[in-house]
């Protein structure tokens, strides 16, 4: 267990509201990732970070933004939540190269009504 926590673990929100999910790690890992998991799609990368203030887009980044102001925290913001963003969101980290073993948090279940 790489000491990764996610908050909140469950959230229900309404369409059009902003939502921020937090990932916190205690391993001093350089790389952090946000994925979403939907039935039939597996895990899809939203955004990732390769250092403080260094972020890049994944394959499903539209409607999401991220920020990383310190090593241990990586925030994912849904700027204006839509029903299509109902999903389970996972944070992952790795301390070595980004293509090496990743360690996952427990996930956040988000329901957008």
């Amino acid at each position: 267990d790489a000491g990764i926590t996610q908050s909140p673990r469950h959230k229900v929100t309404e369409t059009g509201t902003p939502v921020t999910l937090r990932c916190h790690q205690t391993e001093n890992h350089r790389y952090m990732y946000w994925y979403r998991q939907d039935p039939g799609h597996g895990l899809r990368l939203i955004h990732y970070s390769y250092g403080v203030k260094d972020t890049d887009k994944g394959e499903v980044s539209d409607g999401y933004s991220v920020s990383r102001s310190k090593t241990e925290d990586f925030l994912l913001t849904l700027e204006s939540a839509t029903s299509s963003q109902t999903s389970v969101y996972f944070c992952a980290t790795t301390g070595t190269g980004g293509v090496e073993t990743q360690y996952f948090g427990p996930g956040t279940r988000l329901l957008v009504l």
Partner: protein
Amino acid sequence: SQQGEEDPQALSIQEGENATMNCSYKTSINNLQWYRQNSGRGLVHLILIRSNEREKHSGRLRVTLDTSKKSSSLLITASRAADTASYFCAVGVPNTDKLIFGTGTRLQVFP
């Protein structure tokens, strides 16, 4: 688009039997990894095989990699009910910091 595609999508076996899952991918890779996910939990790394390796073992797990066919297989020997989970392959994309995950195989092991 997904790099890794697992086959079968679902697999049901009895305890003691072997379970084999396959993963196919589309382009060159740095490595290929297998992860396990229990229901409602995060993914847990099982094993990593590099592009220049052909086979790797870890306990009851055996992974093979055939880069010419762009495919990998995960064999779980002597399955237990506790092996019931979803299994995902993920490919490390060269010159990036990314893994691309497949859609997973759902394994059910009956006591």
